[in-house]
């Protein structure tokens, strides 16, 4: 990870100042009198647990949300931000945490949406648009064709399109709400280089992330929110990880990766010669009870495709799948669930959650059948299970009947997790399980993974965070271009070896 | 640059060289026009011609009827018998038929005289009776039945639909002659049976003094008599319909309905085909064949 030198003489000039910002939603006070000051040329990190109010604060700056009280000053002059268009016009740009791309438009069209270059009045200069978009994408160092339709891009690629879109604004203040949650090392590096360039240009950046190690690499100052309140602002150079964590969660966290090895038992899932034309080639691996197997790889290496194929979400063109030692035909997700598999998808908004339904309805969705007797749902069971998940995962919600669309990103992710914990699954496939989850909650999830393993569950954990893979796995598989390109034990694995395998350079082939 | 007028003998697509006569009615999901079709089919058999019967799905769809006729002109039928969905809207397509020399027989509903003259269109003959006269018959009957005194209700067809308007005008005019008769409520039930039921049920709530109902078609009248029955007023209200459908005739026999106006659709159909055949044979025909209009009570 490239460290970015601090903006040496901190420019005293405040570009944007927020004072006493308050915002309440039915049942929650999201922000309760928050102050924030952004200076030109700084990377201002915003930290806080899931639901602390970070995104809400940023949406107020970007004009997506109107605040109930408080004042915003731009260059010292009070301003009322009337809406997203107005915010853009005065130079406030944002990359939202939840993707905001138009699925059927191309990457280029998305990047310049609302600001298309014109030939004449009222005619889009499509050629110029594509050229400019391609230029931004290339500068970002991502191999995305500006003409490709966004709905066909992978999550990581979509995230990079979001970044490109924000860059195209040439904003004076640029907010990045968890831009790296869907990215792998490679893209993160490119992003950081871009951030450095922007800083040099005097742009004020707000950076939100739950990946603590990133903060120290790029941040200049850090502000911590807790329960909608401002609890402190520090210079990065004058603080430590543990102090920040204490400010965030209000207690000390001893161990970031509390791995506890569980006794390894019988074979739980075995995949032999799995093939999906053009995507997966001759995949072989075994998961045992009590084992956590990490699956690493670059964006587009086919990890998600592998998970989907095993789970019956995509048809396969060859190969055999054994569950609990018996060969099974898994024709649908339902069949997979019936065999005791659970699959936490990487894209919670499109595949994981029914956003319009409540926490309870989402949590119980795969288990509705199990919670029913004579075709009638047993509400008591549902409520009990949901209450248990809310407590266990510390889901921050006004209640079980809250619609998940109103939850913060991290809490939505917890609901997806809760959904699979509620089933009686014995084999879990977790695709980016801690995406967007705060440090405290991550530890809780790791502990949960430990518990599941101790109970005899087998876990395949797909993750783009190498520290997480290294910290939590008993065994690590690495994918490259649709093949398993390497297999390592926890002891022998290092970041370098994994990366080499992911790039297709290392030899060790899977057994 | 259209083709020469086709002679009856050279009509393509006709089986065994028989000429094809087309009958285009307003719609075929109304028993009135089904009867007309029956009559036409019978005549076609009798005279040995092919008969094509076509109609729009909806009675009021004038544009669709125009399309159908245009398509039949493309098909080069020998003669066209038409019941216009709109008396003025039919004129342009009559002109088109004239241009290629296909004779046009108008049945049941007149094509607007003035519009026809203005457009230079020409029809061979009109066969039918007048909805307006039918409405007058119905009005006179109600007046007689009530002794020239009482509160009347009217169920209208689709607002703005010519056929209904004509019947309504006739009825209003007839009852206007009797100062003791008063139309206390007049509402649309869109030609439909279920709406006839609902609307009349509601009318009875607010106008319990109503002693006679004129419905612009039998379907609405048949719906209304069920509403009367459910209000426990069977036999206490004079109900007059229009079209003389078999069901209405049965209801009259049973005594739940008082009268209906008959227009003899079947006769219209057969006369139309008969006239078309004569035209094709070069015979002279009268430019108006009246078909009796009669009150069935």
């Amino acid at each position, binding site marked *: 990870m490239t460290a970015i030198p601090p903006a040496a003489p901190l420019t005293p000039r405040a570009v944007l100042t927020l004072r006493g910002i308050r915002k309440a939603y039915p049942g929650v006070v999201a922000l309760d009198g928050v102050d924030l000051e952004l200076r030109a040329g700084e990377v201002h990190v915003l930290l806080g647990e899931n639901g602390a109010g970070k995104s809400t604060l940023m949406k107020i700056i970007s004009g997506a949300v*109107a605040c109930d009280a408080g004042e915003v000053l731009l260059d010292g002059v009070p301003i009322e931000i009337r809406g997203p268009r107005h915010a853009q016009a005065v130079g406030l740009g944002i990359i939202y945490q939840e993707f905001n791309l138009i699925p059927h438009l191309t990457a280029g069209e998305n990047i310049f949406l609302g600001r298309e270059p014109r030939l004449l009045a009222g005619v889009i200069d499509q050629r110029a648009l594509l050229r400019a978009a391609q230029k931004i994408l290339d500068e970002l160092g991502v191999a995305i064709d500006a003409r490709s339709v966004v709905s066909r891009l992978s999550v990581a690629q979509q995230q990079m399109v979001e970044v490109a879109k924000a860059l195209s604004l040439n904003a004076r203040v640029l907010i990045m709400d968890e831009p790296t949650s869907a990215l792998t090392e490679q893209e993160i590096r490119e992003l950081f280089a871009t951030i450095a360039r922007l800083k040099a240009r005097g742009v004020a950046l707000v950076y939100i992330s739950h990946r603590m190690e990133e903060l120290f690499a790029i941040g200049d100052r850090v502000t911590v929110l807790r329960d909608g309140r401002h609890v402190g602002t520090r210079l990065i150079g004058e603080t430590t990880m543990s102090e920040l964590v204490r400010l965030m969660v209000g207690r000390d966290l001893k161990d970031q990766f509390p791995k506890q090895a569980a006794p390894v038992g019988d074979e739980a899932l075995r995949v032999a010669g799995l093939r999906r034309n053009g995507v997966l080639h001759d995949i072989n691996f075994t998961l045992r009870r009590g084992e956590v197997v990490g699956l690493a790889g670059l964006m587009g290496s086919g990890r998600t495709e592998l998970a989907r194929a095993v*789970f019956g*979400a995509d048809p396969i063109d060859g190969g055999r799948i054994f569950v609990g030692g018996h060969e099974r035909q898994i024709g*649908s*997700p*339902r069949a997979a*669930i*019936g065999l005791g598999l659970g*699959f936490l*998808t990487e894209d919670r908004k*499109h*595949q*994981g*959650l*029914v*956003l*319009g*339904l409540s926490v309870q*309805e989402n949590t119980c*969705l*795969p288990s*509705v*059948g199990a919670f*029913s007797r004579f*075709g*009638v*749902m047993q*509400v008591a069971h549902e409520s009990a299970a949901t209450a248990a998940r809310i407590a266990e995962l510390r889901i921050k919600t006004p209640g079980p*009947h809250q619609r998940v669309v109103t939850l913060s990103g991290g809490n939505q992710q917890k609901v997806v997790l809760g*959904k699979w914990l509620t089933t009686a699954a014995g084999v879990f496939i977790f695709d980016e399980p801690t995406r967007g989850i705060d440090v405290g909650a991550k530890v809780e999830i790791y502990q949960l993974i430990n518990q599941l393993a101790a109970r005899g569950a087998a876990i395949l954990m797909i993750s783009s965070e190498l520290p997480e893979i290294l910290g939590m796995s008993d065994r690590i598989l690495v994918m490259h271009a649709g093949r398993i390109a390497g297999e390592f034990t926890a002891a022998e694995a290092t970041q370098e070896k994994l990366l080499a395998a992911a790039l297709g350079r290392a030899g060790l082939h899977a057994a | 640059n259209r083709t020469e007028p086709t002679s009856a003998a050279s009509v393509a697509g006709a089986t065994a060289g028989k000429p094809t006569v087309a009958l285009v009615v307003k719609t*075929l*999901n*109304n*028993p009135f026009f*089904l009867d007309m079709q029956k009559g036409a089919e019978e005549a076609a058999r009798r005279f040995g011609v092919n008969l094509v019967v076509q109609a729009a*799905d909806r009675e009021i769809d004038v544009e669709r009827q125009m399309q159908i006729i245009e398509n039949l002109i493309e098909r080069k039928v020998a003669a066209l018998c038409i019941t216009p969905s709109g008396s003025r809207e039919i004129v342009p397509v009559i002109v088109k038929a004239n241009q290629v020399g296909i004779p046009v027989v108008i049945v049941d509903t007149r094509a607007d005289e003035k519009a026809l003259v203005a457009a230079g269109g020409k029809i061979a003959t009109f066969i039918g009776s007048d909805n307006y006269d039918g409405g007058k018959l119905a009005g006179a009957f109600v007046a007689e039945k009530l002794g020239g005194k009482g509160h009347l209700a009217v169920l*209208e067809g689709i*607002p703005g639909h010519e056929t209904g308007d004509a019947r309504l005008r006739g009825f209003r005019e007839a009852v206007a002659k009797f100062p003791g008769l008063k139309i206390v409520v*007049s*509402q*649309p039930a869109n030609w*439909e*049976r*279920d709406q006839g*039921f*609902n609307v009349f*049920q*509601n*009318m009875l*709530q*607010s*106008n319990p003094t109503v002693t006679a109902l004129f419905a612009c078609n039998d*379907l609405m009248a*048949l*719906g209304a008599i*069920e509403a009367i*029955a*459910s209000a426990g007023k069977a036999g206490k209200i004079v109900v007059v319909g229009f079209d003389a459908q078999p*069901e209405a005739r*049965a209801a009259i026999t049973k005594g739940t309905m008082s009268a209906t106006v008959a227009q003899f659709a079947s006769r219209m159909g057969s006369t139309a085909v008969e006239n078309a055949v004569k035209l094709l044979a070069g015979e002279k025909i009268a430019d108006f064949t009246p078909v009796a209009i009669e009150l069935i009570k």
Partner: protein
Amino acid sequence: MKPREFLAHSGRQFGTLVGLFALCAVLWALTPHFLTVSNLLNVAQQTSINAVIAVGLTFVIISGGIDLSVGSLVAFSGVVTASLLQRAVPVPLALLAGLVTGLACGLVNGLLITYGRLPPFIATLGLMSVARGGALLYTDGRPVSGFDEEFRWLATGEVLRVPVPVVIMIVVYVIAHFVLRRTPFGRYLFAIGGNEEAALLSGVRVRLHKTVVYGVCGLLSALAAVMLTARLNSAQPIAGINYELDAIAATVIGGTSLLGGQGSVVGTLIGALIMGVLRNGLNLLGVSSFIQQVVIGAVIILAVLLDTAFKRPKR
């Protein structure tokens, strides 16, 4: 349902309910004939047929679909039942045949949508035309009329002084509400309408449930057909034209989103009642036929404006 949950639900219906009451209040002030027991029973009966069809549509719409064929299915199932009755088939058998016809047509819709991957609009538009043509062919375009008292009891009978159609409507709504809120099938409809892919990945048999929901909608159309046939003492191949619009309007006025994933049958009932009361009131007032259309349109708009005003979220 717990009180809290119930309040949350009825909160969502609150605006529509206010709209209904406001409408009733206006009519009560304008005409003495409106607020009488016999008139209110009339309204309930007149509403019952649309209300029953609208339940099926509510289910379909919650699942993210649409069904335009309901009106044609009313006609088709109606003439099937009626012609069997006229051939002296026992009433229960004839009813069963009618209901099965509706169910079968509905399942065809469902299969076209799931296995044929047709947009619901197209599949049901197609079937709308096919079933209408079928009904016309089957009856040769003529109505089938005149039934025994036994059958007509479905329209004319009373249970505890409540007309049978109203009883049927109430029973259908109670069952539908229960199915929607308390059975896996109901839950799955919301999930499928809300996010089909997430539902699929959660093990919901999306195709099965989608097929079934169109079947249910067809079945309820057939039930409405039976009610209509008994009421009019006649089944017509041209019955039910534009019924889909009325039913969709009732559903949407009742707060069910056409985007799917949201809705309730309670709202639909209120929506159907608004439409029924409105038409009844206009007849009672003797409003001219041209103005009626203007008023109906305006009231639909106003009712929903009121509802949205109550729900309006803060930005």
